[in-house]
């Protein structure tokens, strides 16, 4: 019904932007309520996240995380699967990265990154495969199973880091640092030959381009290939997909494997690209932010780029906020929650009045 009542641009752009504005307005109220100045807060966030190449280095680093997890959630959403397990899949993906980087003596980072991407994707996909299988074959609700798998992943990583992968001399539940050969080229290294002076500190690295490439590839997958056609058809109507000879089991499995693999790949950035070792909670909630990103981007592989950047900005800006004001970093979790609420659950609240508005305008013309 919706598409009939509103032009497509309104559906794709206006609704999420309005939702975002409401979410931001409410966040501003929260900031006011705790006695801070929202305008100053916004200015601080902008300077902190976008005002320097140092800030950009972190903003784009977080953006890379959210691109991959947002893409993961999107692909599953397209098949009408709510993969809430991106967090767990990314955690386990990190295990894959760590194993590849710790135990194989790579001669060069370029080989290692390929292996790390493969390993993280496989690990993430495997972690998504069990809930996917249970949904496809046993009808277990994928939302509940992926939640459970997040906690199981957390416990497993907790065990691995404190008992198995921790170097004997270290007290820190983290792996040893990877060999320096494996250090991924950062924007500083990439842009320097072009004569651009980019901060050395920001951890944004080649994975940014991998993530963007993944978005483009996912776009082609969803809109130019038969598999994408089938995933979208299954997501729109399960009985119709069955009628068309599209196997539900196959689509659920494939969509979840891709979703898990993408979320898992995020770990290459946050483990190999960032601290160059696997630490506890290396995902930092990016799996969940992926949900907000996918919802805002209407689960479109290209559509999620802007929201991923937005959340990258919020994440980096938010940590600056904590430094300069009494607004804690958790403020961005509130914004994240409101974005999820308004673009996801309260979609109709924004949409219905808009549809009425468009109907009125149409009647007049």
């Amino acid at each position, binding site marked *: 019904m919706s598409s009939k009542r509103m032009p497509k641009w309104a559906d794709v752009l206006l609704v999420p932007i309005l939702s975002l504005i409401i979410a931001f307005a409410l966040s501003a109220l929260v900031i006011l309520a705790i006695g801070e100045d929202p305008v100053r807060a916004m200015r601080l966030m902008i300077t902190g996240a976008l005002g320097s190449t140092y800030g950009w280095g972190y903003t784009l680093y977080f953006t890379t995380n959210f691109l991959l997890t947002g893409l993961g959630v999107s692909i599953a959403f397209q098949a009408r699967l*709510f993969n809430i397990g991106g967090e767990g899949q990314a955690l386990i993906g990190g295990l894959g990265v760590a194993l590849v980087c710790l135990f194989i003596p790579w001669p060069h980072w370029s080989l290692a990154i390929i292996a790390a991407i493969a390993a993280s994707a496989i690990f993430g996909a495997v972690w998504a495969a069990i809930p996917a299988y249970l949904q496809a074959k046993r009808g*277990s609700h994928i939302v*509940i199973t992926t939640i459970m*798998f997040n906690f*199981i992943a957390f416990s497993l990583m907790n065990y691995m880091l404190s008992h198995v992968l921790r170097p004997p001399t270290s007290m820190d539940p983290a792996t040893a640092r990877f060999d320096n050969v494996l250090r991924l080229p950062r924007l500083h290294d990439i842009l320097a030959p072009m004569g651009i002076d980019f901060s050395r500190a920001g951890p944004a690295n080649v994975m940014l381009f991998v993530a963007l490439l993944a978005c483009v590839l996912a776009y082609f997958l969803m809109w130019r290939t038969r598999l994408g056609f089938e995933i979208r058809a299954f997501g729109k109507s399960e009985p119709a997909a069955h009628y068309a000879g599209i196997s539900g089991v196959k689509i659920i499995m494939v969509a979840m494997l891709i979703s898990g693999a993408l979320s898992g790949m995020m770990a290459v950035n946050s483990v190999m690209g960032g601290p160059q070792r696997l630490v506890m909670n290396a995902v930092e909630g990016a799996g969940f932010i992926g949900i907000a990103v996918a919802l805002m981007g209407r689960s479109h592989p290209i559509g999620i780029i802007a929201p991923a950047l937005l959340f990258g900005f919020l994440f980096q800006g938010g940590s600056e906020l904590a430094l300069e004001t009494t607004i804690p970093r958790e403020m961005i979790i509130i914004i994240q929650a409101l974005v999820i609420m308004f673009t996801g659950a309260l979609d109709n609240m924004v949409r219905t009045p808009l549809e009425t508005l468009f109907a009125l305008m149409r009647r007049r013309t």
Partner: protein
Amino acid sequence: MDIVTIVQILDSTLRLATPLLFACLAGIISERAGIFDIGLEGKLLIAAFFSAAYAHYSGSAWIGLGAGVLASVVFSLFHGIASITFRGNQLISGVAINFLASGMTVVIAQSWFRQGGRTPSLTGDQRFPSLDLPGAEAVQGVPVIGQIYGEILTDHGILVYVGLLCVPLTWYVLYRTRFGLRLRAVGENPAAVDTAGVSVVRMRYAAIVIAGVLCGIGGAYLSTSLAAGFVREMSAGRGFIALAAMIFAKWRPWQGLGAVLLFGMLEAIANRFPNLDLGFITLPSQFMTALPYILTVIILAGFVGKAIPPRAGGEPYVKER
């Protein structure tokens, strides 16, 4: 394992199961009415904070409880507005509520108390007193009964007993009252309730408000009885374990009690024995922590007794012919 250890573990089980119990019953009420509630965690957390904060300000745990319940009900109403009034996705709304609670508690706590997202420690009347069961002292010498009644059951915060009483109460309301009949019907086939002249919307709101109250008590118990004040993320996944218990119990109150006691015991054992040596294998505490989730996945997979949720669960009700 000697008897003292077992008694201690069971004693601890009862304490640790109580927040799970409140959240589990809340989940049962809400989902029986057809509203999926993965926001239990968030409601526990927000209630824990407001209870501790107001107990601190007022000096009374009871006023804290009121504030916690109120906060939890407000969150329930957010969920209701999104998923009942605007027919949004109940799961997404639940996710949002969890994050909202996670962020709000720290932001507000920091603003009010400036202690890095915690409340000051609560003392005296700011916490719930323990309740000595009548005659507990007297039976302490008696074997078995003495241990069960005189040591395990007695001397807990008053909310532990409130929780235990809520189990038969929930059962009675669900199965023996008009309200319960309508509530269960609304989760199975809302159209049947609607055509019978009962408002589906009102029933569902009633259910989530009750769920809010129960979560509120659970959260208050966490910060003003089990602990002495709020710390960030203090619900620590208990809302999700409660969700697991609810599935484990197949949405039934007595079985829910059983499930939370089991999960509470796993937590108690993990506390007591970080590495549980079973002779042939040593189970790390991480395994015990993950066990409720693993068990729930097994139940969900339908290998051991299929868990069939209420049929209209998760679906917004749209009036149609």
